[in-house]
């Protein structure tokens, strides 16, 4: 690989974007790369939109990713994928969990949750993958492992040894949940 690899992970606060970025970072480090991650904690934890940006290359300076420069976007929620779509570069790859979480303006009736998100995503990214990550995670043992299901899918787009992924999962998740997460990864990788 040459140049900087830019990956953004988006979702709703509490969905596990930060853990996913940590696992991915460990994989890239095992692959011999320099890694930088930028994330924002705080208010955004309380159910707001969240974005984690991860960059890896032989040398990385800025931890933040420029709009329209992300190579890959991993989204844990449909609306958040649509919101962050302008960050993806032309020809970039897209993996989205088909989960839909209603934001407060939709709940209170002042805004509508778009009904055509899948079409709009695929019109921009024809080979985008929209997946029922929650069901796969449930099969693995808990819906909480949806983030690792998505990492399993991501692993097919990145050229890293599978063992790097398994080792990174073992290192980053709680010891009690290692088996479930390894299963979730395998289900996502297919």
């Amino acid at each position, binding site marked *: 690989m040459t140049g900087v690899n830019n990956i953004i992970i988006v979702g709703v606060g509490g969905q596990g974007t930060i853990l996913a970025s940590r696992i991915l970072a460990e994989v890239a480090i095992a692959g011999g790369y320099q890694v930088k991650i930028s994330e924002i904690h705080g208010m955004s934890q309380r159910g707001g939109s969240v974005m984690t940006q991860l960059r890896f290359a032989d040398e990385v300076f800025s931890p*933040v990713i420029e709009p329209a420069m992300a190579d890959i976007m991993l989204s844990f929620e449909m609306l958040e994928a649509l919101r962050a779509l302008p*960050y993806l570069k032309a020809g970039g790859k897209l993996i989205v969990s088909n989960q839909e979480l209603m934001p407060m303006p939709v709940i209170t009736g002042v805004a509508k949750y778009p009904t055509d998100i899948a079409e709009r995503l695929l019109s921009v990214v024809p080979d985008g993958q929209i997946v029922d990550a929650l069901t796969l995670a449930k099969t693995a043992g808990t819906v909480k492992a949806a983030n690792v299901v998505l990492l399993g899918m991501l692993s097919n787009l990145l050229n890293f040894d599978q063992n790097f992924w398994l080792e990174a999962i073992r290192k980053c998740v709680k010891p009690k949940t290692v088996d479930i997460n390894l299963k979730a990864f395998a289900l996502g990788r297919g």
Partner: protein
Amino acid sequence: MTTQLMTGNEAVARACYEAGVKLVSSYPGTPSTEITENVAKYDEVYAEWAPNEKVALEVAIGASIIGARSLAAMKHVGLNVAADPLFTIAYGGVNGGLVVVSADDPGMHSSQNEQDNRLMGRAAGVPVLEPSHSAEALEFTKTAFSLSERFDMPFIIRLTTRTAHASSLVSLSERQEKPLIPYKKNEKKFVMMPAHARPRHLDLEERLASFMAYVEGCGLNRIEWRDKKIGVICSGAVYNYVKEALPCASILKIGVSYPLPARMFKEFAAGVRKLYVIEELEPMMEQFACSLGIKCQGKELFSKAGEIMPWDIAAKIGGKEQAPLSIPADIPARPPVMCAGCPHRGLFYLLGKHKLVVSGDIGCYTLACSPPLSAMDTTICMGASIGVAHGMEKAAGGDISKHTVAVLGESTFLHSGMTGLLNVVYNQSKVTTIILDNSITAMTGHQHNPASGKNAKGQPAPAVNFEQLCRAIGVQKVLVADPYDLTATEAALQECLDFDGPAVLITRRPCALLVKELPAAPLVVDNKNCTGCKACLKLGCPALGINAEGKAFIEQSQCVRCGLCAEVCRFDAITKGAAQ
């Protein structure tokens, strides 16, 4: 050598471990909180949550005077609270190395202002070191401890959100134990009464002058010569962005943001054809350059407000066009909200229902300002709610106290609300103060506090008794209510508002995120009874919604079965289902 991916905050914590630090005392605040959380994991370092930043710094000062290396970490506004000891210990100096971390928040990701605390260092006469990434966060913090001892001065490590919360690789070393530096009584150094403070101020100026001489030649600042057509002076996170956006430019990378190196500024300015100073927030380096007669461009290109991003630099100096980020207008915003089952929700529902003027405060509950609750009138700073309500009553008079309340969380009350309540009693207003007691500092990620029954290391600790505390201050009406019980809470609220004197209502319920066991029976909507009136939606609960048939529905994956929606439904359409 072991390397590890770390946030800037984790790296500062690691530096405390490696530098032989004995004590860390802090108050949580984004983006500084994880420093102390991570220090608490090292058995070799004593770590504590103090009730506020002023106490935290005083504790660290005590440790320094007795001869230990010590640190206090806080967010930028926390340094305002700790400014009193900071400005004076600058005169006194240190014994063991003393470091204050100020984690600033340009762009206000999680803050009420974006003050630039490099200026606090300058105002106090305290040197400020500014790392650009995690490896430097570790290295600069360790350096700050040894420089603190060498120059007899406290040091500030200034992080910003993008250095505190960005991760990069760090090389780890072993801990070097630092035995206590022997303590000798020295009242001329540490008793800052006027007769001692006057010579100590002159002494501080001498110490600063000798540190300034050191700064010129030290490795913390460096010039990176590349193409000399463009030169950029920058520091902290912005340095990374300049490297990204202008790979050919020469750079004067500033690691010591106060005091700045005059000789290096002049040498660098003389070596480049066009000079820029790129800094977030205040034009501190730019004004320093101007004071030296150096021609440069800075704030005429970059705003004093908010963050600077690499693509701003590429556009404004590199001439690279940047299409604005356009998010389609029909995408609904997703603001942060109170969690499903948040114990604060019921209270704010009642405050809104009674159309009270709500003098609010800093914490998760500040989210009650947003629709649909829309139940907050003011939020200024930690602990301000009580003083603001008192001032409103004293100025407006009449029966304003009948429809005004001050609301703050228990951690915020302990931080700086107690003195406000004392003022209410002493100066005899009739403010009703509501203490939201969820037994944890929740907004910053669940840190323990003097009310939670545990300390920073998770060990058992005494928990303050708010009822006794408020009565001791002189409040005669002190009531406690469970905010899940709207009827009881409403009655208690009314009793406090009607009381002819200061009153305190404590709404007590643990944070919903910390409750592991849910009630057995889920809440279900009976579509026969639901009229679609949407009264339940006024709670602003993320687990509630309206389905395509216009009936309420409950998202079971989010619901924690608090039962508030059943309480506000006038048609008995929300009931307990079969136990699971």
